């Protein structure tokens, strides 16, 4: 037990060190690479949150874009029309994501399996159409941030902070009593209810937490861009990319999101001049993962040592 505690503390310290390294990296990296770093950090936040929702919670959502877009618009709206400081605004953006989840849950969380998935997709599209049509929120023109966004280095630090929060939330959800609740609800909701778990509340908690983190990431994205419009902020790309990254990396595994994000983004850089080829490759990897590696690359990596051992011991 003490050994496990030591291992956990060592792991935690290593994590803090790694994040700090990322935070100071912009000082030595080229601008272009810092851009990539920032994108990676945001993608990681989205991937971890989505993994919480879909991998650990069993709620396969195609509605990532609704939280991301909402967070972006809330951030820009508050920065433009209020004197709240940036940290508070980011918190408000996160809160808006949680509120969205709470409002949608009575309807959405009653749906199971594929109906839930399609329901989140419909919600995301409906939100996008509303933002495009309603001129009060900028309509198709969108909104412009009326102040200069922070420097790239500062944005990276904020992203690192958000990632730290995300990883802490994931730690809490994946390695505590909460994880058992999530798993119970995911695997068999009715049986769990019989045993005293309250599925709706568990699902709502996961939904709200994930949506809050996604909304915060959306806020950061808006801060980076300086100008947002509904096609980009509420576009399906967020839902598609996040899902693909996590599935390729390993749905429901701890290392999956990181592996997925790194793989997809690196291949994106290698194929930078052929964006369609990159996206098609991502889709292809997804299909291959479903067929041959349902636990993703993380699953393969975890199984390889055992399979190697089995092969070498002549099993």
């Amino acid at each position: 037990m003490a050994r496990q505690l030591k291992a956990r503390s060592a792991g935690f310290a290593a994590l803090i060190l790694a994040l700090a390294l990322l935070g100071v990296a912009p000082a030595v990296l080229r601008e272009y690479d810092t851009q990539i770093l920032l994108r990676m950090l945001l993608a990681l936040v989205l991937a971890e949150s989505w993994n919480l929702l879909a991998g650990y919670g069993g709620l396969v959502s195609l509605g990532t874009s609704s939280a991301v877009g909402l967070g972006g618009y809330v951030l820009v709206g508050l920065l433009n029309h209020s004197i709240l400081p940036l940290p508070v605004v980011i918190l408000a953006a996160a809160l808006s994501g949680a509120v969205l989840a709470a409002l949608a849950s009575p309807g959405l969380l009653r749906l199971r399996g594929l109906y839930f998935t399609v329901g989140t997709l419909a919600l995301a599209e409906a939100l996008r159409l509303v933002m495009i049509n309603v001129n009060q929120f900028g309509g198709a023109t969108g909104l412009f941030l009326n102040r200069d966004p922070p420097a790239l280095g500062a944005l990276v630090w904020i992203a690192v902070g958000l990632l730290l929060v995300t990883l802490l939330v994931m730690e809490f959800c994946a390695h505590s009593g909460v994880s058992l609740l999530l798993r119970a609800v995911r695997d068999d909701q009715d049986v769990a209810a019989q045993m005293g778990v309250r599925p709706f509340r568990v699902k709502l908690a996961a939904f709200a937490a994930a949506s809050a983190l996604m909304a915060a990431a959306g806020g950061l994205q808006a801060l980076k861009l300086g100008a947002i419009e509904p096609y980009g902020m509420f576009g399906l790309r967020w839902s598609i990319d996040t899902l693909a990254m996590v599935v390729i990396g390993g749905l429901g595994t701890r290392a999956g999101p990181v592996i997925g994000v790194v793989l997809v983004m690196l291949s994106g850089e290698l194929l930078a001049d052929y964006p369609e080829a990159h996206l098609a490759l991502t889709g292809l990897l997804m299909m291959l993962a479903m067929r041959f590696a349902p636990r993703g690359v993380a699953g393969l990596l975890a199984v390889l040592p055992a399979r190697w051992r089995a092969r070498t011991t002549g099993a």
Partner: protein
Amino acid sequence: MAPMIDGGDQGLFLDRPALPSHALIDSLRSNNSGGLKMRRALVTIGLLVSLLLAAAGRAEEIVIGASLPLSGQLASFGAFQRWGYEHAVAEVNHAGGIAIGGKFLPVRLEIRDDKSDANISAGNVENLISRDHAAALLGSCTPALVSAGALVAERHRLPMVTGCDPRRAFTSAHPWKYVWDVFFDEAELAAAPFKALADAHVTTNRKVAILHDNGPDGQVVGGELWPELARTYGLTVVVSTSFPVDNTQFTSIIADAKAKGAEIMLVDAITPQAVAIRKQIATAGYHPRVLVIEKGAEPAQFGGGLGALADGVMVGGYWDSSFPYPGARDLLMAYERETHQRGSQHIADSYAATKVLLAALATAGSVGGEAINATIAKTNATFVVGPVRFDAQHFAPLPIVEVQWQQGRTVVVWPAKAATGKLLFPIP
């Protein structure tokens, strides 16, 4: 102990224990440090690899970057812009390049496709600056895309000269310091059809239907200026609606306009929507006597896609090869000779924008952003689009004429001194 992450064919998720077992809880707990270490290693590896992705060394040339809608719903504009940019750069290189620090350097134009998406536009400009080391930039087309790229340039303090962004949409986006725009003023564009009709002394039932997209310039022209102007000219607006830029069905609004008997229809939409609207007006059996379609009806693709249906459609123009400016005729002839296609006014503002930028580069004799920017501010000369001089808001206005499709070609019908044909009324 059971493996943490089971591979193989057991479904998408982890094991399904009927009841949580101690073995499971233990296995959950000790997964921790392994996951963290792997995570850290992966991120570091990822960083290193990306660092190692080589960037091209700085070559002895001046790089000008541009993000253009070469595909997607704005592709019709992007194609002409690209030619304008490339033609101007080719001319300068043919003459030996630009003298920087005593040496004549060639200009390399780096163009990326933003697929008519503002986000991609912003990303492209980022890449052009940080990966391709562009010294200066040229803009995309339509306010949303231009603004997205321009904000990036502004943040990096690099000069950008652009066309294809009307005055109000441009100046209301941001108090620009490094971005310069050569285009028309929406107020003049909106008024042009009214003036043209008044000067031609046509009689209609004075009922107007307005249909505009809800992009930045669509809102200004269709949502604010046209209703005001209709009032000024004593016309009644019987229908006024907006639609999303990428809308495909217009049957309700067209049915409404037809039912209310509007003889004048004013539309502001991009080319794919312009084509769809013209078709759906026909299929609704609606025959307005005046049809104005701003923005989308100017490129050759409009006439090409509709054939005879395009005849009579009016659109505001800011350039025609018949204009009395240096090189106007030659520019169009060069385009048609090189591409064997009908030209468009969009070759002119893009060509002129590039010329403005390259002239500033030559005068400044430096690739420093501030130096180029200061020199652009002093631009005061006549280019192929007319006299270019930037006002305090970095905008240089172009004159507006009214153009009409007649038998597959665009003809200038107003004002009289620039006209190359007579106004066709009513539309066939």
